[in-house]
């Protein structure tokens, strides 16, 4: 019986999403761009999904552009905004130092094309200070991108305040909300952002599908060029079944927010308290009172996270460390590094991220197993 505590990496399909995916794949297989009956059917499915995703964010359906996932949406936002604004003389981009690689690597690619890129620091709290943004904003700033919640440590960023400061200087504001959209209420009007990315597989939808919300009036150049799908904002024949399933997952999410968030937060707190209490020399990373409900990132002194990950997996417990996605390379977490921790602490943290299916029994099992695993790994390390 496996225990899955890696919901920030991905989530299983909620039943409604799987059903919608299968039904649409089987019955509505037309190309949404076609004029005929089959195209119209597909368009109708897209329209329904578009409405559901817009409602998830408090936005308008016409402001939703479907993409191939969160990374796709981040790329579209950064490249699309920067390319559109470059002729106006704005060639400065600001991103936080704890962004997901989808944002950081894209910013680096733009830097190689002559863009000036500023990185916003974070302190040990893992939260961006809006004053730090003021320090770097200029009249040449085209876009500021700061994530809504960090995927590794779960800290919520002061997006409203940051967006307001960007707006004062005439810069656009993008937020990568991949870890919040579909998991907690997100209101684009209240946040005051211009662009927002989300990803279906983080909230019970399928992988390879996401969306970029673009405030009406904001013009981006499409980074995926070709046909005129998504009102010319993102080319490519739409993944109708996937998008439909994302819509279904969005509907489920909105229905379950009120009940799910407090329950998950309580379980997270139970896990966190349990592990910290049972295992000595541990510490939580990131300001605990400014986090999403489901995440706790814990450092284990004198343990290599790679070994703890494997040992836990062999016990049937699935968690993660850093956000390393490459084959086996143990990169120190860039997030923990940005928070100023010493090298060792960037290599000894484990991220536990809970989901709607997580139970108290699972949490208690993890608390039970952790101490002996950590003790064994520490004793082996000592023998070195």
């Amino acid at each position, binding site marked *: 019986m496996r225990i899955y505590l890696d919901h920030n990496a991905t989530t299983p399909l909620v039943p409604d999403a799987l059903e919608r995916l299968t039904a649409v794949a089987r019955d509505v297989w037309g190309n949404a761009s076609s004029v005929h009956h089959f195209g119209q059917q597909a368009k109708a499915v897209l329209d329904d999904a578009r409405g559901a995703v817009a409602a998830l964010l408090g936005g308008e359906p016409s402001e939703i552009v479907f993409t191939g996932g969160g990374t796709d949406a981040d790329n579209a936002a950064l490249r699309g905004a920067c390319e559109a604004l470059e002729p106006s003389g704005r060639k400065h981009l600001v991103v936080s130092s704890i962004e997901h690689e989808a944002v950081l690597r894209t910013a680096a690619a733009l830097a190689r094309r002559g863009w000036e890129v500023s990185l916003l620091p974070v302190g040990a709290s893992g939260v961006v200070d809006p004053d730090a943004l003021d320090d770097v904003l200029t009249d040449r700033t085209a876009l500021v991108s700061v994530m809504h919640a960090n995927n590794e440590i779960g800290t919520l960023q002061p997006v409203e305040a940051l967006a307001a400061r960007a707006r004062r200087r005439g810069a656009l504001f993008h937020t990568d909300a991949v870890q919040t959209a579909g998991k907690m209420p997100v209101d684009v009007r209240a946040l005051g952002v211009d662009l927002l990315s989300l990803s279906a597989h983080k909230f019970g939808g399928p992988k390879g599908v996401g969306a970029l919300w673009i405030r009406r009036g904001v013009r981006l150049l499409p980074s995926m060029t070709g046909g005129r799908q998504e009102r010319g904002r993102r080319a490519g024949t739409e993944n109708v079944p996937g998008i439909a399933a994302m819509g279904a997952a969005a509907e489920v999410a909105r229905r379950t927010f009120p009940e799910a968030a407090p329950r998950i937060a309580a379980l997270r707190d139970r896990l966190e308290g349990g592990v910290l209490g049972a295992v000595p020399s541990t510490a939580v990373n990131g300001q605990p009172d400014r986090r999403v409900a489901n995440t706790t990132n814990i450092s284990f002194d004198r343990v290599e996270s*790679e*070994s703890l990950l*494997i*040992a836990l*997996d*062999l016990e049937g417990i699935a968690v993660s460390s850093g956000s390393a996605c490459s*084959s*086996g*390379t*143990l990169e120190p977490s860039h997030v923990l590094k940005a928070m100023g921790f010493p090298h060792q602490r960037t290599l000894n943290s484990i991220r536990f991220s809970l989901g709607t299916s997580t139970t108290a029994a699972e949490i208690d099992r993890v608390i039970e197993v952790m101490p002996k695993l950590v003790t*064994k*790994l520490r004793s*082996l390390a000592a*023998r*070195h």
Partner: protein
Amino acid sequence: MRVVVAMSGGVDSSVAAALLVEQGHDVVGVSMQLYDQRDGGFGTCCTIDDLHDARRVAARLGIPHYIVNFESHFHAHVQRNFVDEYARGRTPIPCAHCNGEVKFSELLLRAGGYGASHLATGHYVRVERGDDGRWHLRRGLDAAKDQSYFLFSLTQPQLARACFPVGGLGKDEVRAHARRQGLLVADKPDSQEICFVPDGDYAAFLERQAPALATAGAIVDGDGRQVGTHGGVHRFTIGQRKGLGLSTGVPLYVLDIDAARQQVTVGPRAALEQTTLAASGVNWIAGGAPSGWTVAAVQIRHRHVAAAARIRALDDRRAEVVFDSPQSAITPGQAAVFYDGDDVLGGGWID
């Protein structure tokens, strides 16, 4: 029992894993990432493609598979040693260092952390417990594939936790087994070169790691007379005949490498013969150095027929070997491994 199998993506370690699964053990596949792959196609083994092969085999066998980062260990114990030895005019055996200092040291430790009692590899050797309770290391059944030469440094505690499932099989049998199991690596060629040296061009590798190695020096004859020049002592090994850049009509062989003076001495073949050698870093498999002279067969290269000799331990970690007949090209940096028939008594690094 839970066993970690070190999977390189080759057919031997793949079949080792398959055999352990058949025997009903709780098998965990682990592949070591030894060097940064991102510059694309580094070496001839354990590349991204090999790691991928290992993962596919693990999936086929239904066992978990993890890739663990060993870059800094490998660099510190194997790659750096490789460079240092050549810089000292010696000819190292990285595989033997890797086995003793990486696989059966750090990886064995980690295996314990994963709850495994044993570490298995695809080496062609056999480990057995003697009547006296001590562990014995024996040559693999397939004499042509025997790899005991590279495992002489294993200690009793390491042997107690080591497992070599293919040691009692022939290579052909191993490949046949892989085919029967439908393993994609059944016909994959064996890697012959040093795993971290692309194209076998070790001189270029060394010069990238330590540019100072490419220092010109003199090639001299037995009387000290200069007969040529060279571009770095690292390009030579004892007994080498080709690549000397000399045209003297008489075949000349490298007799000695003096790194301090950047000098390579050459001479006729007969001068390569010696009857004694000194070894350090000696490991005695049974646990302690015997007193007095021990009669054994001593192998001084992987491809060398062990020759009759007597060995005397000078202390815990040093020994002298006297051969019954002269041996050609005894090379500092190589291993001198002592055998009693198929049984490995121990070995050390040739001084």
